[in-house]
């Protein structure tokens, strides 16, 4: 089959690889009908995540049709149309039982590596480095799906692929980010980053009752899409984000702040170069510029929610602000499976149509070009969906 593989920094190639097979009793093989490129994969593309190996198959947002099931699969059959959650979760451990699926204790065969880095390991993730298990991803014609009973949601007819595909990651991710803010009536939510996750966070914040959402980015097309979603926007290259946020909130600050940017943040000013330098010297792995500003801007007693991906160490974390302002920080890889049912319901009721975020459609064979334009944010690119 054809698969999009990683070969090094900004080097993706679509090559022929063997077809996947059932390796564990709870596995299924899914014939992919749609797959997307996730913003978090740009961290792999730009080689910020260690333990990638040449030839690793990319992709953790995908859906398709089950064509084979392992002997222990109970609730899925050949022919089922499913969306696959990006974290791989066993369904039986302490965390899975609490529906904290991205923290599954049994799904990362390389847990020992993550333990060294984080103290404990998160769940395995498709196509996301060997630190999270080295699982082959879904930017391919076929993919092996471990624990298919737990990790998929069955889609009945009536939805297009593009309407449900993002249940795999970015919709639940944006939704969980907003949910973590514990939004109350009259709340203002500020969101750093208007990429796909930011876009879903904006809409989710409104779904959960936010009065006002303020979105911060620098790309006109992203700010435009944010305004389409009902947000007020700040272009941080034209105005100081913090100052403007204070102005529009009467100096109190937003009730909650969402960092939908993560470890490759960009921002004008010396701190950005400080972090770039430290990153280049390998003494800091992540650039937490958006996070610092979110912490500083957040109102006293507010919540900072972090769906943005961080991988290692940061410097100059304003812990004094976190403590003295009594902030709550909530974060985590998304427990995508937990949101399958409620979000599918919202889509069914027409409360949201996730396909709004798609700006580019292409063939799997063009995945390397897709990564290139997405990485450069060229051509108004916000979300790319590929078909085999």
């Amino acid at each position, binding site marked *: 089959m054809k*698969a999009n593989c990683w070969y090094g920094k900004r080097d993706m190639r679509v090559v022929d690889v063997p077809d996947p097979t059932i*390796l564990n009793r*709870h596995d299924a093989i899914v014939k992919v009908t749609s797959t997307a490129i996730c913003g978090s994969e740009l961290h792999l593309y730009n080689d910020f995540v260690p333990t990638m190996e040449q030839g690793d198959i990319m992709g953790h947002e995908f859906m398709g049709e089950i064509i084979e099931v392992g002997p222990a699969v109970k609730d899925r059959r050949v022919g089922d149309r499913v969306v696959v959650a990006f974290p791989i979760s066993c369904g039986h451990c302490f965390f899975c039982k609490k529906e904290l699926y991205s923290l599954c204790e049994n799904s990362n*065969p390389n*847990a020992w590596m993550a333990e060294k880095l984080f103290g404990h390991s998160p769940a395995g993730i498709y196509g996301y480095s*060997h630190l999270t298990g080295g699982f082959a991803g879904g930017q391919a014609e076929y993919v092996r799906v471990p624990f298919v009973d737990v990790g998929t949601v069955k889609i009945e007819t009536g939805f297009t692929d593009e309407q449900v595909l993002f249940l795999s990651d970015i919709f639940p991710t944006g939704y969980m980010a907003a949910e973590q803010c514990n939004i109350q009536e009259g709340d203002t939510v500020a969101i750093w980053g208007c990429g796909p996750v930011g876009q879903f966070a904006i809409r989710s914040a409104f779904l959960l009752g936010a009065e006002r959402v303020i979105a911060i980015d620098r790309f006109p097309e992203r700010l435009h899409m944010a305004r389409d979603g009902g947000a007020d926007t700040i272009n941080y290259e034209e105005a100081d984000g913090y100052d403007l946020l204070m102005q529009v909130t009467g100096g109190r600050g937003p009730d909650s702040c969402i960092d939908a940017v993560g470890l490759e943040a960009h921002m004008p000013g010396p701190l950005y170069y400080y972090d770039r330098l430290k990153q280049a010297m390998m003494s800091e792995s992540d650039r937490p510029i958006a996070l610092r500003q979110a912490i500083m801007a957040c109102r006293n007693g507010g919540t900072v929610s972090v769906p943005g991906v961080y991988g290692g160490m940061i410097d100059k974390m304003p812990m004094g602000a976190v403590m003295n302002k009594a902030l709550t920080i909530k974060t985590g890889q998304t427990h995508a499976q937990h949101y399958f049912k409620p979000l599918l319901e919202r889509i069914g009721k027409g409360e949201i149509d996730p396909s709004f975020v798609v700006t580019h459609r292409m063939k799997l064979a063009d995945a390397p070009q897709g990564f290139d334009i997405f990485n450069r944010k060229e051509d108004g690119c916000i979300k790319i969906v590929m078909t085999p």
Partner: protein
Amino acid sequence: MDLTTSRSTLRQLHTHAARNGEPGTVTQTQEERLAKGLGWFGIGLGLMELVAPHQCARMAGLPSGHRPLIRVMGLREMASGFGIVTQSTSAAAVWSRVVGDMVDLACLSAAFLSRRADRSRLTTTLAAVVGATVLDVVTAQQLSRGVKTRNGAVRVTASTVIDRSREELYRFWREFSNLPRFMKHVRQVDIHDEQRSHWVAIGPAEARIEWDAQIIEDLPDEIIAWRSIDGAVIDQAGTVRFEPAIGNRGTVVTVDMEYRLPLGTVGAAVAAWFGKDPSQTVKMDLRRFKQIMETGDVITTKGQPAGREESTSWKYDRAVR
């Protein structure tokens, strides 16, 4: 309850190794002592840089405008100092200090170019920092290297929580022929009788090691202890205990193992199994035990497709899978 002391008494294993060596608490190795010393030195130096940046700048030969820089360096120094003092395996912390030393060196070199700098003092400071860097590098290397032993014995403890009853877990483990399903190096266990079993393990380069072991304690649903019989090629003892996890969360399974490394090729093979971090092997064995008991399977990626000719998974498999 004092967890420190209660845990170490819990782990008093009466093995051959313990009999031959010093019983009691594990002593600090020389590397660890050096690392701890460096850590405290770092904290002291950092504190000084923080509270008296002016004097520090003068001592170092820096122009007086560099006070904020000194403070930053001080904070950095203290942070990595704390890292070393508080971590039990401090190789990583010392390496992070090395990186910090590099930053300091870069800053000092930059200051060297400043017109107002006192060059001769700066040279002394630079030399001192270079010296500290070298010391850090050496210590980090020593800490990163090899298995830590106490009188030639390797001792490993690991535990995990499994969402199953003690009875189930005990029963599965007590059936020793099940062990190769989750113990990476054990290929086969044949049961001779109630007490005795024959173990076959495969090391690197397919080196085959066999020994007989006997059960020395067996409390159903609670504890199994075994050790190799006298004269076996490998001197090994282990205990697994099953205790109810508080809050109805299943069972805490704790494994204590002690190996005395034999000499020669067998010893080298055993040492290579355990790699740099012997407890990792046991931890991963336990993790696989948990996977089997909770999900029925050991989850694997072996055999999945990739766009490469040769598997690179050995990098991640080494000593753990």
